[in-house]
């Protein structure tokens, strides 16, 4: 068997740093994830093969040992997600890349990662469902990302739209997970995962890398250490550092004590997590905008659809002089309701093209129903909308 094309870029690996050299590379989206993870400092990968995410795992199996990291093929996706929890508390950033059915299997682990405030990154290369569905492109897991895991656990979920962004967003995901001590999801589609594009890797010193806050750096001794306290984002002592951390999945006090359960303690524990992500982390930037000035209509999109939607909006301007504004959600969760309300005053129709039957349309409606006359979903499943298809739906609506 010949080495696949994607491995070509791997040959450019600098033996000194073992990371891809700054400059232009031709990569598949799945491979760009792995290069981004290595730059972010991720050194443990656990996975289970699943189409269309398998190439990421294969790239990881080549690349992680090169940087002295660890790669393991687990017995299932449940195990993969659990490896991330163990590795993260062992002091190493960890990644898994999966696709929709595998993402379903990870939900319990995501839930416990949220309550234990474990930084880790899970990337879902979405394929259509329900069931085995198919292996083409989809955005049908965007609601599962937020609501799939049991309990009221807030989550950060990002949506890349190009191979370049698969690289960049993976780094951003690690930075956010370490900054907010929480699992971060990257909701990509088969389209970008299998796409091959140029990726420009900047000099490493220009890439910001965030690492978790440590109690040692803050001068907190083990006896006074609260693994879930001190601040809204607690400093994190890794296992093996003498801090005697008792990781718990039950609702707990700030030191991990679970014996003093009360509904008030339960409420406080859940509310704290909610505040951390839904309020504090909500400050992170999340919207790309264009043509917003004097627009009569709006196109709100995310993920790879934002590329063809952008094309459609530009054509509508050129062809018919239609004033359609463009908003892309770079971050799906926490939902940027406030940010949307800050920039959208009054429009006629909001178009929401999605690779599902209208999922993010719901929080968009909740945020903007008083700022528009109508919200129109433009669905497609299994294939990315073409600009013409989006345009035809827009023209049909505005006829």
């Amino acid at each position: 068997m010949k080495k696949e094309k994607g491995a070509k870029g791997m040959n450019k690996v600098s033996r000194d740093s073992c990371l891809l050299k700054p400059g232009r590379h031709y990569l598949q989206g799945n491979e760009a994830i792995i290069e981004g993870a290595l730059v972010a400092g991720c050194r443990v990968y656990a996975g289970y093969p699943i189409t269309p995410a398998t190439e990421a795992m294969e790239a990881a199996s080549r690349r992680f040992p090169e940087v002295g990291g660890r790669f393991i093929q687990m017995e299932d996706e449940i195990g993969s997600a659990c490896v991330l929890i163990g590795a993260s508390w062992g002091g190493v950033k960890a990644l898994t890349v999966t696709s929709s059915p595998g993402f379903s299997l990870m939900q319990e682990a995501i839930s416990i990662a949220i309550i234990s405030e474990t930084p880790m990154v899970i990337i879902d290369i979405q394929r259509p469902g329900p069931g085995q569905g198919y292996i083409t492109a989809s955005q049908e897991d965007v609601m599962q990302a937020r609501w799939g895991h049991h309990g009221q656990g807030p989550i950060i979920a990002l949506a890349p739209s190009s191979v370049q962004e698969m690289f960049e967003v993976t780094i951003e995901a690690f930075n956010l997970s370490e900054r907010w001590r929480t699992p971060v999801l990257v909701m990509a589609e088969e389209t970008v995962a299998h796409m091959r594009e140029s990726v420009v890797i900047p000099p490493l010193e220009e890439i910001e890398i965030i690492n978790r806050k440590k109690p040692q750096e803050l001068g907190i001794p083990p006896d006074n250490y609260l693994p879930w306290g001190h601040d809204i984002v607690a400093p994190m002592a890794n296992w093996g550092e003498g801090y005697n951390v008792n990781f718990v999945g039950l609702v707990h006090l700030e030191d991990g004590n679970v014996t003093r359960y009360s509904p008030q303690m339960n409420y406080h524990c859940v509310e704290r997590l909610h505040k951390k992500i839904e309020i504090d982390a909500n400050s992170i930037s999340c919207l790309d905008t264009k043509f917003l000035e004097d627009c009569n209509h709006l196109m709100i999109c995310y993920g790879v659809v934002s590329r063809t939607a952008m094309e459609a909006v530009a054509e509508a301007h050129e062809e018919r002089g239609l004033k359609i504004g463009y908003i892309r959600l770079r971050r799906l969760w926490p939902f940027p309701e406030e940010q949307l309300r800050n920039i959208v005053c009054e429009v006629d129709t909001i178009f929401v093209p999605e690779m599902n039957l209208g999922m993010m349309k719901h929080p968009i409606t909740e945020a903007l129903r008083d700022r528009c006359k109508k919200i129109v979903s433009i669905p497609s499943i299994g294939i990315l909308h073409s600009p013409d298809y989006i345009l035809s739906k827009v023209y049909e609506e505005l006829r």
Partner: protein
Amino acid sequence: MKNHPMLKYLKAEGPMGPRLPTILCPGCGGGQVLNYTLHAVDRLISKDNIRKEDFLFISGIGCSSRITSHYLNFDSAWTIHGRALAVATGALLANPAFRVIVFTGDGDLAAIGGNHFIHACRRNINVTILCMNNGLYGMTGGQLAPTTEKGVVTTTTPYGNPEESFDLCKLAETAGAPYVARWTTAHPRQVVRSVMKGVRKRGTAFIEVLSQCPVHKKMSPVAMLKMFKDNTILIGKERESKEGKIPIGEFLDIDRPEWNDSYQKIVSQAREGDYRTHE
């Protein structure tokens, strides 16, 4: 209790209040297993100079998992039902120096966690598995477990268990664990020695401890311990049950390459640019 020699390894008091007593029922075998394990750990710290910080206790869900929960004055993780070994795998990938001890029960390990169990043994990750086998699900009220003997009445087998039960030691051995032993809570010194051997073993050590659940078995703890002594027979590696008794003892003690040791060779290979493609 105040002067118990193992109290130094427990968190009687945390920054936000007391953590003891444990939630275990009076007469439960879990406390005994914890006591034996801590004795072994104590000796390993003093005899082998293993750093206390390198010990890591991981558990899943259930009564046996609850004994690590938040009572230990060590790094510990009380994780997801059945997934302790997967979390332990992750910890060992991150830091191969960890001496991981997994506390688990028969339901946690052999039912919901069965897949991780066989694969941990196959990979030979450096973990000591202490499985407290009480033949039922204690935390939820005495339901059928994969180790419940055929015919036994439980809260979910009101007409008797129609299924055969698992021999966990045979399972571990077949799956590749290099150290396999079975004892009962009535064999304290043997358990302590086995745990010490298990932690010293480079790879997966599986130690099954038959443990009493007086509450759901509706027997006195003393009667159950006596039963453990009477109904077991110490045998060696041939391990054939005699006179219908449960075999106990060390069934296997061999050496096999541990996962991280094997993977370190992959790292050296990859760093030299040997991709080993299928050409």
